[in-house]
């Protein structure tokens, strides 16, 4: 059988055209015994790393001499010039690869996000020397096109013959042979491959429909007439093509010697002063850091740890990486930007010395080697969080320091998720917009990989309807397919040489932003340096709170001034009094706190990691709590396991522990354990955890662990999936959780003010934050055009240590930013406390004034809301001739708004009210209906039946809770946590999903200081609110 190399093949990274993933193509090509496979996505190399990894995996798996071993990957790209000329370029060596990448960058940078633009002139300027060109002639090809191409790639140009059973294949072959004779160009076979097997035709047609934004039945000739564009068996190719054309492909493949493994990475050099080696410089910085951290000298244990870590770093030559991160962090410090590192290498002793993290190694039990392994040969991974409002400064610094040609953001491949897949497939199948929308929306709540049958019924669709059958099949196929490239939240790649010879750069949606075509994982796989520059709202809030406290106390506060391990703070946490606190404020965390009762920093590390879908689905929560409270003995199956699990009482809670267990109990190598971690993150999308599980079970059986323990570990790994939380991240987060708790406990006004000014962030809306602050005795003052600043501010209170909190103008809905600025300037210059004057001096439009009136901010100038509106509407526009036009008008007969009306208007304008809680206004009615206050429920016996009502402030249906819906109701006395089991929710979907004011009758359940109301009957009382606009924040 003749050998063949496929030289023209697009993968799913030619978005909405290629219908097979790179891995599938590689596997299939190996299966068919191809000599080589070129991945030639259209003006892109985004898919080649995945293909490269797939080839690597095949080589690893195959025994020598087996099939698949010989498959060679060629990196190339398909182009279509703006005049329609189409060709494929294949890289032959490192230099030609650099040229190809450079060309892609040039074509991408001159077009909008997602597109490219290439002209003949551009190509002539940027010819990637050494590349092989395959000309793909159109039906009536102009010989001059081929001539031009062969002039650009002299001696490297072939005519690609793609016979796809179009009916006139024979004539086409003759025509191209004639063309070849005419131009003296050789011919080769190729397949214009879009899918790895014929069966993907259905998906390929669907992708075309999505791309063209038309339903399938309207596409007609825009679809490919058949499914021949797949990797065809060599027997068939031999039947279709002359032998010489097939042989030509192999000859071409032989000339392509480039492999991605050649991309050796060089770290930037400018971080080391002249005359120093990276190692000596790093040592020097660390020594200086040690002196700062331990002025009396570091403990021996830490010293030994640092020595050990340094040795490892030196061995693997990672010094420049640590120097890079240190440089960025040092810049942030110098600008007063709060930052904190987290992640695998961040919590090492050397990072503590370098100031990258604040997690004291003496307090933690983290082994550095776990994060940088000799075997994995991958760079360490450090994520650095910065204040979210100032992250851009850091990014701009990096661009400045290394230049845009050496630093760029990694991309994220946005893939199809169930919802988007349903939407696009539904449209392609010609379903009505409203059906598609309904289906897609219902998936938000009832998610999963399949479109579940009962929801179809609810949409009025039949399960056995052929369209639905197709929809379900296609949705399953489409999920996980890449849709487009987007900007990674903060993964920066920094290189020594120009980046554009390493990986293509393209435009991002944000102006002045560029991203590279590879994802974070791709960079990692190729061993390229990457630093995550992330924004974190809580750091902004902490910084602001510290500033407010400094202003208030007259003493400069920094984060290090906050005393550690304050028992009063922990007592507050044990009461679950954590609204606004970082990471542990959610409802689930709040119900865990009184049970876990954190007493020290490490308890917080556990608290943060344990309330995650991973540990919950892995069923680790209850065993841990039982062991912690002494209800269950702590036992370990072996001494090694004890070493790993001792700090969490024998229950694996962190991702690292699971990996370590796989090593010591399952006999995995660290490299395998890392692969396990990766597949854990991806198994929901791609599957493929099976083989690890078998191996793990076997390994544990071999080492004498009993079946039950092994099964339990496997189940835990599965539960961890993508939701497992690493200890290294939790440790850093716990620090911030503690700091924010401390601020909340001692300076509630400053803390709330800082949270409000750092929005959007956290779990709660401003209304809840303010309610909570008032419950803690903070005086909150309304927005007032005479006193409010743009942001919320603190106003000193004569007879109290706590200042009062004044709401800022930014809380007013509809008030323009420019209006706020002009108003503040005008106020600084002084005005005569009169609406007309305000309008004239601040140049406020009627819209802005109306927004101020709606918020009640004009009360001081114009009286109650109705009056304020009347006045605002009546202020004449000033004209140059009559700048202060005034009308004499009679007093209008306007009623003062009732209390309820004011509350409604407050909510409408600001989403919160400082008046009485709406439920307090309704209380007489509610009490008459036998509805109790939230606070009253605590006085009831466990198990008794009661009715409570409140504004629905949160509605959750966690994926880990098998259909249970959690609601949080708020009334004037506090929150009620409601649990709605599926049995109760199915019949009462409408009140459950639609109510803003909801009454719940059910059983009171109290346990460990947590109160739940187990819902029986739900009643929608929204009508009682009139037009009260509270919006529940629905979280998944």
């Amino acid at each position, binding site marked *: 059988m003749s050998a063949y190399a496929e030289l023209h093949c697009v993968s799913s990274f030619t978005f909405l055209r290629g219908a097979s993933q790179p891995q599938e193509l590689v596997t299939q090509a190996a299966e068919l015994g191809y000599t080589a496979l070129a991945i030639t996505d259209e003006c892109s190399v985004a898919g080649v790393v995945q293909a490269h990894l797939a080839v690597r995996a095949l080589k690893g798996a195959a025994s020598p001499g087996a099939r698949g071993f010989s498959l060679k990957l060629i990196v190339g790209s398909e182009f279509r010039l703006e005049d329609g000329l189409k060709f494929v370029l294949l890289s032959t060596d490192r230099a030609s690869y650099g040229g190809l990448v450079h060309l892609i960058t040039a074509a991408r940078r001159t077009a909008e996000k997602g597109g490219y633009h290439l002209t003949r002139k551009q190509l002539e300027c940027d010819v990637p020397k050494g590349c092989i060109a395959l000309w793909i002639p159109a039906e009536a090809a102009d010989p001059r096109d081929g001539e031009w191409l062969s002039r650009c790639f002299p001696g490297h140009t072939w005519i690609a013959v793609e016979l796809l*059973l*179009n*009916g*006139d294949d*024979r004539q086409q072959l003759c025509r191209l042979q004639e063309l070849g004779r005419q131009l003296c160009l050789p011919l080769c076979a190729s397949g214009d491959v879009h899918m790895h097997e014929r069966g993907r*035709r*259905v998906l390929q*047609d669907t992708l075309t429909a999505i791309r063209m934004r038309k339903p*399938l*039945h309207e*596409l*007609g*000739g825009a*679809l490919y*007439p*058949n*499914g*021949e564009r797949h990797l065809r068996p060599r027997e068939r190719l031999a039947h279709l093509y002359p032998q010489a054309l097939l042989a030509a492909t192999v000859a071409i493949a032989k000339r392509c010697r480039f492999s991605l493994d050649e991309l050796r990475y060089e770290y930037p050099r400018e971080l080391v002063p002249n005359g120093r080696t990276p190692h000596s410089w790093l040592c020097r910085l660390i020594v200086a850091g040690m002196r700062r951290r331990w002025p009396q000298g570091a403990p021996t244990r830490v010293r030994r740890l640092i020595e050990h870590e340094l040795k490892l770093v030196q061995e693997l030559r990672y010094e420049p990486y640590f120097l890079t991160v240190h440089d960025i962090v040092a810049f942030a410090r110098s600008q007063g930007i709060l930052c904190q590192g987290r992640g695998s290498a961040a919590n090492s002793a050397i990072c503590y010395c370098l100031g990258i993290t604040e997690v004291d190694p003496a307090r933690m039990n983290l082994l550095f080697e776990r994060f940088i392994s000799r075997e994995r040969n991958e760079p360490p991974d450090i994520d650095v969080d910065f204040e979210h409002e100032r992250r851009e400064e850091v990014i701009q610094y990096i661009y400045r320091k290394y230049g845009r040609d050496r630093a760029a953001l990694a991309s994220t491949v946005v893939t199809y998720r169930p919802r988007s897949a349903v939407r696009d497939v539904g449209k392609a*199948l*010609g379903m009505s*917009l*409203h059906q598609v*929308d*309904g289906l897609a*929306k*219902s998936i938000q709540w009832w998610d999963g990989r399949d479109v579940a049958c009962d929801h179809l*019924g*609810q*949409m*009025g669709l039949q399960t056995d309807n*052929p369209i639905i059958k*197709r929809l379900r099949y296609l949705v399953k196929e489409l999920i996980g397919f890449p849709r487009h490239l987007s900007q990674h939240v903060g993964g920066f790649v920094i290189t020594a040489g120009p980046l554009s010879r390493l990986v293509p750069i393209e435009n991002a949606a944000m102006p002045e932003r560029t991203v590279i075509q590879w994802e974070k994982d791709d960079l990692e796989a190729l061993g390229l340096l990457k630093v995550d520059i992330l924004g974190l709202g809580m750091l902004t809030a902490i910084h602001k709170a510290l500033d407010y406290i400094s202003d208030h106390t007259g003493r400069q506060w920094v984060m290090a001034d906050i005393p550690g391990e304050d028992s009063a703070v922990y007592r507050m946490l044990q009461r679950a009094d954590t609204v606004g606190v970082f990471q542990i404020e959610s409802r689930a965390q709040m119900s865990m706190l009184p049970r876990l009762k954190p007493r020290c920093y490490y308890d917080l590390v556990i608290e943060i990691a344990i309330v995650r879908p991973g540990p919950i689905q892995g069923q680790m929560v209850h065993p841990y709590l039982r062991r912690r409270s002494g209800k269950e003995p702590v036992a370990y199956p072996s001494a090694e396991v004890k070493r790993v699990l001792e700090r969490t009482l024998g229950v694996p809670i962190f991702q690292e522990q699971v990996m370590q267990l796989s090593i010591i109990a399952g006999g995995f190598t660290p490299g395998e354990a890392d692969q396990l971690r990766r597949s854990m993150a991806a198994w929901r999308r791609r599957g493929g955890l099976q083989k690890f599980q078998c191996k793990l079970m076997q390994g544990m059986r071999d080492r004498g662990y009993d079946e039950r323990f092994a099964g339990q570990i496997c189940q835990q790994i599965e539960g961890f999936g993508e939701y497992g939380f690493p200890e290294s991240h939790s440790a850093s987060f716990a620090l911030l959780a503690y700091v924010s708790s401390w601020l909340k406990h001692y300076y509630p006004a400053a803390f709330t003010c800082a949270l409000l000014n750092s929005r959007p962030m956290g779990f709660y809306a401003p209304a809840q934050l303010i309610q909570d602050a008032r419950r803690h005795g903070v005086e909150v003052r309304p927005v007032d055009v005479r006193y409010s600043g743009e942001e919320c501010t603190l106003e000193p209170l004569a007879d109290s240590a706590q200042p009062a909190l004044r709401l800022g103008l930014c809380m007013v809905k509809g008030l323009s930013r420019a209006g706020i600025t002009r108003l503040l300037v005008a106020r600084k210059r002084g005005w005569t406390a009169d609406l007309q004057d305000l309008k004239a001096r601040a140049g406020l439009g009627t819209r802005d004034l*109306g927004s101020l*009136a*709606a918020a009640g901010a004009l009360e001081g100038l114009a009286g109650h*809301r*109705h009056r304020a*509106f*009347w006045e605002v*509407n*009546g202020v*004449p526009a000033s004209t140059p001739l009559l700048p202060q036009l005034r*009308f004499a*008008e*009679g007093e*209008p*007969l*306007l*009623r003062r*708004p009732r209390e309820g009306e004011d509350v409604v*208007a407050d909510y409408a304008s600001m989403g919160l009210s400082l008046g009485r809680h709406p439920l307090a206004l309704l209380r007489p009615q509610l009490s008459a209906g036998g509805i109790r206050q939230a606070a009253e429920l605590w006085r009831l016996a466990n198990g008794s039946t009661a009715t409570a009502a409140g504004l629905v402030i949160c509605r959750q249906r966690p994926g880990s809770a098998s259909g249970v819906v959690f609601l949080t109701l708020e009334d004037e006395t506090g929150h009620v946590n409601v649990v709605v089991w599926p049995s109760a929710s199915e019949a009462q*979907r*409408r009140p459950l*999903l*639609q109510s803003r004011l909801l009454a719940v009758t059910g059983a009171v359940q109290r346990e460990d200081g947590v109160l739940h109301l187990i819902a029986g009957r739900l009643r929608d009382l929204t009508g009682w609110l009139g037009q009260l606009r509270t919006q529940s924040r629905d979280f998944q």
Partner: protein
Amino acid sequence: MGRAPADSRDTSTDRQPQPLWLCIRFPRLALDIHPPGQSPVRAVINADNSVHSVSDAARAAGIETGMPAGAAAALSRALQILPRDVRRELKALEQAACRCCQVTPTVSLAPPDAVALDVRSSLKLFGGFAGIQSILQAILAPLGHDYHWAAAPTPEAGLLLARCRREIKIEGRERLRSALGGLPLYSLDLDANLLMRLHKTGIRQLRDLWRLPRAGLARRFGLELVAYLDRIRGKRPDPRALYLPPLQFRSQWELPAASAEHARISDAADKLFRKLVRFLRRHDAGTAAVGVRLFHLRSSFTPIHVGTREHARDAAHLLHLFDQALQCRTLPGPVTGLEMRCADIQAFTPPCQDLFRNTASEAQNWQHTLEELEARLGGKTIRHIESVDDHRPENAWRYGLSAGRKAKPRQRPLWLLPQPQRLSHRDRRLWYRGYLTLRSGPERIECGWWDGQDCRRDYYIASNPQRARLWIFQDLKQRSDTWYLHGLFG
């Protein structure tokens, strides 16, 4: 058709009795115009995908006006969603107005869902207001729409009350202020934005508006608001366009003696057609469809339809078409008389005349030929072939009413069999009136999985000893060697 303005009555000073506007609102018109479906849970959706109106069952399920369609669908699995059709609503409204003309000639449309009639002058004729109400009920009942009524001295006030479902009669403008005072602000027919601004100023009922100074109101909320309020209370004239029922032509001709002779019948028809054309000229109109009934003894009749492709009023041509149609019919017996009805009457646009050539142009002649053919064959029997963009040969064309686009140049036979014909084998060779030889191919077509007519075929051009060029295919979905003949090349 055109509407004439009603006489604009001066409103405040005349001594004549004040008008009494009876306003009738059909709250569910948008829903009623849709034929009943299987589900009683129905909602009409606006173009912006929000709910416009709902049936009782839908309301009971919690679906309300203004909510997004998606939210509505989530509430009831049986919900049937209907698109809003403003044109049909207006038609239905005109139908209702047409019936109301039996009570008074002063009928005015108030789209989208109401009509206003001044019944003052009809009160005596029908024996008072109660009489009018009962006769209206009888007139409107066959339409099957629910309605609310209200009567007031100004049309705006009547409409306002009907919108609020207050079925009362108010006489005398001076009583309007107090009678309307309790109506909610949101019943006013104003832009939503203006309503919100008024609401914010503390106005909840019309009473609150009466209290405010006119000048202040006008300065803040515009003159239009004040004008509207004045129209409601009759302080400002409110001329309304009157509704005119559509034109119709109906005429009969008795034959002197029953006859089956075509010439006699044609003569009579000629007279009627001339009459029709005179009627059309008078109204500057033309017609494209005329119905003629030929009456026989014992009140049975033969209907004959005369249709043209454009609106016209050429008596000779119409008669010619009638004759053609008549010739193709066998009449069941002698004809005693004719009746001509014509409801399809529209404004007439004469064809363009060329200055130099006398162009009864070719296109027109062609149209006339087609009309003649249709008159002979009866009904819409003439079809054209259109090409359709589809890979599947049997789906690549269809019958259409007008000549379609040109097909793409592809190797396709001119004659496609209605059904592919299974080919047989002889001596393991394909056989169709002789052994077949494959000439070119294959052309593989794999297409159509999405509409249940999935096809996977390899097409070849083959020839047989008679030199016929055949289009044959192998069906890849069936076991190998299943071949079909699908077409013949010319």
